[in-house]
């Protein structure tokens, strides 16, 4: 695949379970492509150099900074954004826990943090507080001081474990 700098390439990907496609220049960042070309504005753009974590999405199941990826790089890949966490208008358990534990104030960083938490809890079912804080070290939140976020993540982990135990 070779795309010239002044060409637009039709990128086709699976976004939140649906096949989507739109045009992108080689230099278009994934975050801008999601927001401007695909209308998925839940992903926020912060520092644009990989430090703040606000733009985190999942690419092929792994949390990734969408400002450090190009739109053309997700050709044929699976991308999940914050829009995938709510099912039929109902917030998911992580989102509800964030509300219950005051894990956000202005909410700018929240979409990215939730996507990191989503991958993390899929991999680590009984995290320690230290592990949660380590996972969150890739995100900047200027409102909460992180304590509410840590509590929300630990609460979801506990609740999911209880659900698993109760299930036959």
């Amino acid at each position: 695949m070779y795309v010239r700098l002044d060409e637009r390439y039709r990128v086709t990907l699976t976004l939140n379970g649906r096949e989507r496609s739109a045009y992108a220049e080689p230099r278009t960042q994934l975050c801008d492509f999601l927001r401007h070309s695909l209308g998925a504005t839940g992903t926020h753009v912060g520092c644009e150099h990989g430090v703040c974590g606000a733009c985190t999405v999942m690419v092929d199941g792994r949390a990734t900074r969408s400002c450090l990826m190009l739109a053309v790089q997700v050709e044929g890949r699976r991308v999940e954004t914050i829009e995938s966490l709510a099912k039929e208008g109902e917030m998911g358990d992580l989102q509800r826990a964030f509300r219950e534990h005051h894990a956000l104030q202005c909410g700018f960083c929240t979409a990215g943090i939730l996507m990191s938490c989503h991958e993390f809890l899929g991999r680590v079912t009984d995290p320690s507080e230290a592990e949660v804080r380590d996972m969150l070290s890739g995100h900047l939140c200027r409102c909460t001081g992180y304590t509410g976020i840590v509590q929300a993540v630990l609460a979801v982990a506990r609740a999911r474990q209880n659900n698993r135990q109760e299930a036959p």
Partner: protein
Amino acid sequence: MKPAAFDYYRPTTRREAIEQLVERGEDARIIAGGQSLMAVLNMRLSQPRVLIDISAVEELRYIERRDGYLAVGAATTQAELAEYAALADEVPLLAQMLPWIGHFQTRNRGTVCGSIAHADPSAELPLCLATLGGEVVLETKRGKPRRVTGDDFFQGILTTARRPYELITEVRFPLSKAGHRYRFQEVAMRHGDFAIVALAVDIGETEYRLGVGGVADRPVVRRIPRDVDLDDALNTLAWSLGAQDDIHASATYRRHLVREMGRRLMTEEIVQEETADVRPAR
């Protein structure tokens, strides 16, 4: 900011990648995981004419144990290496060090070879490669692959021995030696930030091999015999690094860290336990 415009090329074989690199020379930059390069491009500190993306070159995605070393291909991510089950046995220093690289979100895409190619003086992987005496394998269109030791490869801040027409295809980390112990420790403002000082040590029967990152313009490795006065040796090493004051730490503090962390890392068992709590195991 947004990157300046460039052509984007995504080959699927090593041969195609090298051919394009040879054709375009210094106009080209290789991108693998992009976790350092994309930030550089976004800030327009680098404005290549063509970006050659090797992340889809499957033949460069491997972790192979060979005779005496572990080979890691250029498309292999830091997360894939961390998930390699035998890592703690085969190259224990790498297993200890990997959780300190950036954050899990950047390790998911960032590659092992990419970090070495970027050659940030405070980065963990270059320090690990230099301390263990590993090698970088560089290939171009003609001739045999060139092998360069870690010591020779790192030449200064973001500067390496790679020639414009060469692709780093693999790095090789020597396997752990019987009777040796390996330790890593770093101090940063926040976990995942750039190291103010990072230390890696290979403790052998007769000598220490101590690597220091974050102080000089490249990782510095010194051999220290086990029978010399350690405080003296560490003080001499600390003063030899040309430490500078910057917004993160003073030169005095950096020398202090080299002496103090060095002594603890080389002599006390307790260090590993202290850090076990903050080192993510998964």
